[in-house]
């Protein structure tokens, strides 16, 4: 009888424990996080297992390839879909998502939880969180720092015979270029050269037409050559700023680089194609977002000691680089607001940020980035920090999609299709953008 009672007590206790854990899980609920399908997303899946372990919240992920990332998620946001509770949306979406009420404004939450934006790199706060720009209105937590930079074939650059020939030809030591003139010379030097019995080419640059590729590439040169999106004293006044003589020279240089020094068939290149060109040993240098660097470093053929990193070179009007990356936002129509906010609170923790960096993400937290461990953690850490210090971003206006499409068309028509002049392309771009802002009632 005693045995029977003990068994019954045990069963009841077990039932109660399992009921309690079911209750906890259902209280914690589940969260769906939306992002692009790329290496850092896999790192985030790994990282989020800790969140599940701590809170019991089930994490689901919706990752979409970059080429359809904007289409898919902007469609989701615009249609009021409830797929995502959390989203790592592109920096340019912030204006539209804030003004249309898609994202939750996080100021009160940050204040309540003691989260300070001073703890993050200023460029990432401006780029990923603030709308209107420069105002203390935060719609996202800086999550994944990214910037356009360059990698080069260190093993080729270090070959004595190539160094000697280069020095004789150009009068300076072959090494990572500091300016676009130097980059051009290096690209010319390698273009069509035989290395280890294989024809190689100067550089791989962004030329993609369909989404945002060529814009994310050409802006790196345009910023360095003095392009401003608008008159600093008169918002949306673009005449003479977007199509300034410096801007024309920058656009001409990008076209020259495309025509002279890229591999054959490089007319529609974005992140994937560019990294393929470098990994397959076709090019001496390659332009890409920094998120590709950890993967490249690990690559058996071109990684390790064979690859070097340098920030976007400087131009005559300054030294800038195109910002990439995303902040993490909470969707206003989520059914699990508490869970989504608790994820943000968890994600901001220093240990979590450190682990995020170790797993392959790029933290935006100053405490992580400025720690001696990070700086010594990889050969690209310093280049990443140097690059993040010089970032500029494309329009983040609610009408960014129209502005982007206009630029894609005008620049691709000129650079790749070889139609018209740089001046005409930029003049037409100013005209297109003016029409967009007029229809927005901002002009």
């Amino acid at each position, binding site marked *: 009888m005693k045995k029977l009672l003990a068994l019954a007590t045990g069963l009841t206790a077990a039932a109660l424990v399992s009921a309690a854990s079911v209750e906890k899980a259902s209280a914690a609920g589940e969260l769906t996080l939306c992002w692009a399908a790329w290496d850092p997303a896999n790192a985030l899946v790994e990282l989020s297992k800790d969140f599940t372990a701590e809170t019991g919240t089930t994490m689901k992920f919706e990752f979409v390839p970059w080429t359809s990332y904007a289409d898919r998620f902007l469609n989701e946001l615009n249609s009021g879909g409830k797929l995502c509770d959390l989203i790592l949306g592109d920096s340019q979406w912030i204006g539209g998502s804030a003004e249309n009420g898609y994202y939750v404004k996080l100021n009160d939450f940050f204040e309540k939880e003691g989260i300070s934006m001073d703890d993050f790199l200023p460029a990432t706060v401006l780029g990923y969180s603030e709308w209107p720009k420069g105002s203390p209105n935060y719609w996202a937590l800086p999550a994944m720092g990214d910037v356009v930079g360059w990698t080069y074939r260190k093993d080729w650059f270090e070959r004595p015979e190539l160094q000697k020939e280069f020095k004789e030809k150009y009068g300076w030591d072959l090494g990572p270029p500091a300016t676009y003139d130097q980059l051009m010379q290096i690209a010319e030097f390698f273009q069509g050269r035989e290395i280890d019995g294989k024809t190689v080419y100067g550089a791989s640059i962004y030329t993609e*037409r369909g989404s945002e590729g060529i814009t994310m590439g050409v802006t790196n040169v345009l910023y360095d050559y003095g392009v401003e999106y608008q008159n600093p004293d008169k918002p949306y006044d673009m005449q003479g700023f977007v199509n300034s003589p410096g801007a024309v020279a920058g656009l001409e240089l990008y076209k020259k680089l495309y025509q002279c020094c890229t591999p054959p*068939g*490089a*007319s529609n290149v974005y992140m994937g194609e560019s990294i393929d060109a470098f990994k397959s040993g076709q090019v001496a240098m390659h332009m890409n977002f920094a998120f590709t660097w950890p993967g490249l470093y690990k690559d058996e053929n071109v990684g390790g000691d064979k690859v070097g990193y340098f920030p976007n070179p400087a131009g005559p009007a300054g030294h800038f680089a195109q910002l990439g990356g995303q902040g993490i936002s909470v969707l206003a129509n989520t059914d699990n607001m508490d869970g989504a906010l608790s994820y943000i609170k968890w994600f901001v923790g220093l240990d979590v940020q450190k682990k995020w960096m170790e797993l392959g993400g790029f933290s935006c937290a100053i405490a992580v980035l400025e720690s001696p461990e990070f700086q010594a953690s990889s050969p690209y850490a310093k280049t990443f920090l140097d690059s993040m210090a010089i970032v500029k971003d494309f329009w983040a206006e609610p009408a960014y*999609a129209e502005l982007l499409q206009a630029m894609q*068309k005008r620049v691709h028509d000129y650079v790749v299709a070889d139609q018209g002049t740089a001046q005409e392309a930029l003049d037409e771009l100013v005209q297109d953008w003016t029409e967009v802002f007029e229809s927005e009632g901002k002009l």
Partner: protein
Amino acid sequence: MTETSAKASIADRVAEATPPTVARRVRSLSDRAIAWLFISPTIALLLAINIFPLFWTIYLSFTSYKANRPNAPIVWLGTTHYENILSDPDIWHSMQVTAHFVFWTVAIETVLGFALAYLIDRRFRGHAFWTTVILIPMMLSPAVVGNFWKFIYQPQIGLFNYAITFFTGGDPAAFQMLGEVSLAPWAIVLVDVWMWTPYVMLICLAGLRSIPDYIYEAAEVDRASRWRQFWSITVPMALPFIMLAVLFRGIENFKMFDMVNLLTGGGPGSTTETASITLKREAFESWKTGYSSALAIILFVAVFGLANIYVKALNRVKQR
């Protein structure tokens, strides 16, 4: 048991199994009402997924609506979008690109498709095997075709450039089928011809096989030459089928999107930007919903109008 008595017993059993109320209700409905009862689900579905969106699109085409601005007021713009579209040089450029694509693909596919059908119709040894082989491209998904032709056209590793330079000499990397303004429009034509010529061939083959042998036998008796038989019997009798193939391919290529998008994305520049790609960009990348609705209506009217004229011509040919 005879067949008639078996049928009668089945009918009796069905009548017995049917509850009297249902039977009475059905009996009281007219034939017309029963017909409506059967087609009403289909009509409801058509109204929901075809007719309503069409009228909604027409309405949107007169407004300033943007799908990415759900909170913005919708302003009635009248025919502004239509005027802007019809006077926009970029739109006319994409129409020209579409016309070039449609004309050349349909022309080449028709000639090649008919020629292949004519050959296959000879019923030579192994013709069934070759018919299957020829049909393979049209069985593939356009997405797959777009992707692998991208590799075939790759100047450094692609087969196409090697094949061309094997015969002509020179450096395979010297030209880019997808990256050069002069070649890209022909690159997409070539892929479409490769993929869809078998489809035209199939329709033409059906036409050729529908021609009764006795007509050729009569022509033989009249000592008509092969050439004369071809022009006086084969072509006129297969013409309705050829015209049908032209209609199908014309409509399909007028709205071509997937394959071109995968191959060139409309580039280089806007060289291969067909009307459908422009429409997608305006609707789902720039989010100009009102404007893109107007463009969609213009394209719809153009295809619908041209197809109607063509179908009338086709009927006239059939009646001859």
